[in-house]
């Protein structure tokens, strides 16, 4: 007998998606992570535009990770045009990126994921019984947004980061205000760890998982670096950023309409858990201790651990953000202008770690600095095959095939990936099953 389990509209995620599973006598016949976003075709529409316009247009791929798109775009453009930014610009971009990660992880953990664990339909329903937890989450989110506003000029779609540097550098006063907020954030991290450690275990899907992330051996950052590490059962392989296509060799898979990213024929997971699994050094001391308090053991075979990994990164980002602001205040901000740009023909690739994982922008420019080709590969596009893989394991490992219970587990797996569906549409779109 064949049955279908369907989540028509996946709630509490960014964008429009769903889940379809077909069972044949209890065995999984097909799994699909459905995507219903309209195609915006931005990579094609930007052709002919000046290098100055690209990061502003392509940041609009996604709001929650608009800093990631903006900075990855700048990295690709600067690589293509041979622009080398100053160490101060690198540091400010690194800090801006941490602001986005704090905002995004806090939004995901407190507003989208925690309600799952405590069985509430929304953060507002959660607020009725757990007001302090919701207020804590909103404070964390606001902290991330304050960093984005101070350095990026706006919380959503930053405007201040431009090719070669920044429009306006942050004032000492604004950094002092950020420092105050980060000190409150350090205290809030303690409550956050306690809250996350008290959540019931989500233990229903175990499978060997391949992870991929940008190598960041020094400080577990999101922005700097040009080497991607793929790790599987303790084996590590390095892929240079410019060879990113070897990770996105899309294949059609039976039972799915998607083209799947794989490495050596295996789907892989990107995001917080992948970053912690591949970059074992570089975490702040407090974040390292938080791993133990949250019971996160690596390598993990449970995709739900991505939520714990986000908690660990939240702690790391607040602590390392404070250290960066202290350094900026100690060394002082140098009033340096942007690095001058001479348009020339060239190709460049930028790879960074968006809150949800590996993000690639790769561009080609003509000799007048007009873009002739743009390729964007987003974390959720990389993750699509792995999400479906974990859907399959979840069903296979569930003793009961009761539809409502399975639906909830599948939704929790999807949400643990923190999917960003506006983003993912750039590689794949699947039709609503007729």
């Amino acid at each position: 007998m064949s049955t279908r389990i369907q989540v028509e509209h996946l709630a509490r995620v960014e964008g429009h998606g769903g889940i379809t599973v077909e069972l044949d006598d209890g065995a999984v016949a097909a799994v699909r992570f459905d995507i219903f976003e309209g195609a915006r075709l931005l990579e094609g529409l930007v052709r002919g535009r000046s290098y100055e316009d690209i990061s502003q247009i392509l940041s609009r791929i996604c709001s929650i990770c608009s800093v990631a798109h903006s900075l990855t775009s700048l990295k690709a453009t600067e690589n293509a045009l041979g622009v080398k930014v100053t160490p101060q610009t690198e540091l400010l971009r690194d800090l801006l990126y941490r602001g986005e990660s704090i905002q995004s992880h806090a939004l995901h953990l407190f507003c989208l994921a925690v309600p799952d664990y405590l069985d509430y339909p929304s953060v507002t329903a959660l607020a009725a019984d757990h007001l302090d937890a919701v207020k804590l989450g909103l404070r964390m989110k606001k902290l991330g947004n304050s960093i984005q506003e101070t350095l990026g000029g706006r919380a959503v779609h930053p405007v201040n980061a431009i090719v070669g540097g920044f429009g306006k550098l942050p004032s000492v006063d604004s950094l002092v205000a950020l420092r105050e907020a980060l000190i409150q954030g350090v205290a809030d991290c303690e409550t956050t760890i306690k809250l996350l450690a008290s959540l019931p275990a989500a233990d229903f899907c175990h499978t060997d998982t391949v992870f991929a992330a940008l190598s960041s051996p020094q400080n577990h950052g999101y922005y700097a670096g040009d080497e991607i590490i793929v790790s599987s059962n303790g084996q590590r392989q390095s892929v240079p950023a410019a060879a990113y296509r070897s990770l996105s060799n899309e294949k059609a898979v039976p039972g799915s309409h998607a083209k799947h990213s794989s490495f050596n024929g295996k789907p892989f997971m990107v995001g917080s858990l992948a970053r912690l699994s591949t970059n074992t050094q570089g975490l702040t001391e407090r974040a390292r201790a938080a791993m133990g308090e949250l019971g996160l053991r690596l390598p993990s075979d449970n995709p739900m651990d991505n939520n714990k990994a986000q908690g660990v990164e939240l702690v790391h980002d607040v602590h390392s953000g404070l250290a960066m602001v202290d350094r900026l205040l100690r060394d002082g901000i140098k009033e340096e202008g942007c690095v001058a740009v001479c348009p020339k023909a060239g190709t460049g690739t930028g790879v960074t770690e968006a809150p949800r994982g590996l993000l690639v922008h790769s561009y080609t420019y003509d000799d007048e600095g007009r873009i002739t080709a743009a390729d964007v590969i987003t974390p959720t596009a990389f993750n699509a095959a792995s999400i479906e893989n974990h859907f399959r394991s979840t069903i296979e490992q569930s003793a009961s095939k009761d539809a409502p219970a399975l639906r909830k587990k599948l939704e929790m797996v999807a949400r643990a990936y923190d999917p960003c569906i506006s983003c993912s549409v750039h590689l794949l779109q699947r039709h609503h099953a007729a």
Partner: protein
Amino acid sequence: MSKPTVGLFGLTGCAGDQLVILNCEDQLLDLVSALDIRDFLMASSANDVSCELDLALVEGAVLSKRDEEKLKRIRARSKALMAIGTCAVWGGVAALNPEADRAKLLEEIYGHQGAQYDSLPPRSLREVVKVDLNLTGCPIEKEQFLSAVSSLLNGDPPIFPEYAVCAECRMRENNCLLIEKSQVCCGPLTVAGCDARCPGLGIPCVGCRGPVDEANVSSVLAMFGEKGIPRERIAAKLRTFAPTSGDHS
């Protein structure tokens, strides 16, 4: 008095306007207690998808049949509909090159499957249904959103600025990037409401809020000409977020 029933919806876009609403951290708990939010898929999994709504807030542009049908269903159940964000009000970045051959681009980006995709040329909401209020911005400004909601709760029509970004820029006493630095700044033709954020950072306005009604387009274009800025460069920049921007010249 009973609280107004409200729905928040996204069509195709980046979800940035819904995110700005979730970013009202200091007001969010008051906001959800003043409104009866019945349908908000991005934030809740317990939604009433058919009840009548006093107000629907809709972001994103119409880019597919699915979007079009969804928007018509929202309109049919809502007393008032407010478009939020530049995509909903003007079409936004997905409409940045209306002449582009979309069928060809679909095939180039998505391969041979592209032809099967549910894809329509981009349209703003008012090109598809009746829209009662337009709150523009890419994304919308938090303060304008909150003030619009509080006006509506008091039974007053919200007031949005009808002047150009230039006016706000002068109030901030910024140096003019167009006149003094010959930069391609869309401030004279773009509707205010952002407090001239970008020129305030020394960065030319990209026109992300869409056109201002009362602009003297031909004299502004002449000024760009005097600065030696090619007309096609200005036209392309102006039309990044609103395909009809600068059409009144």
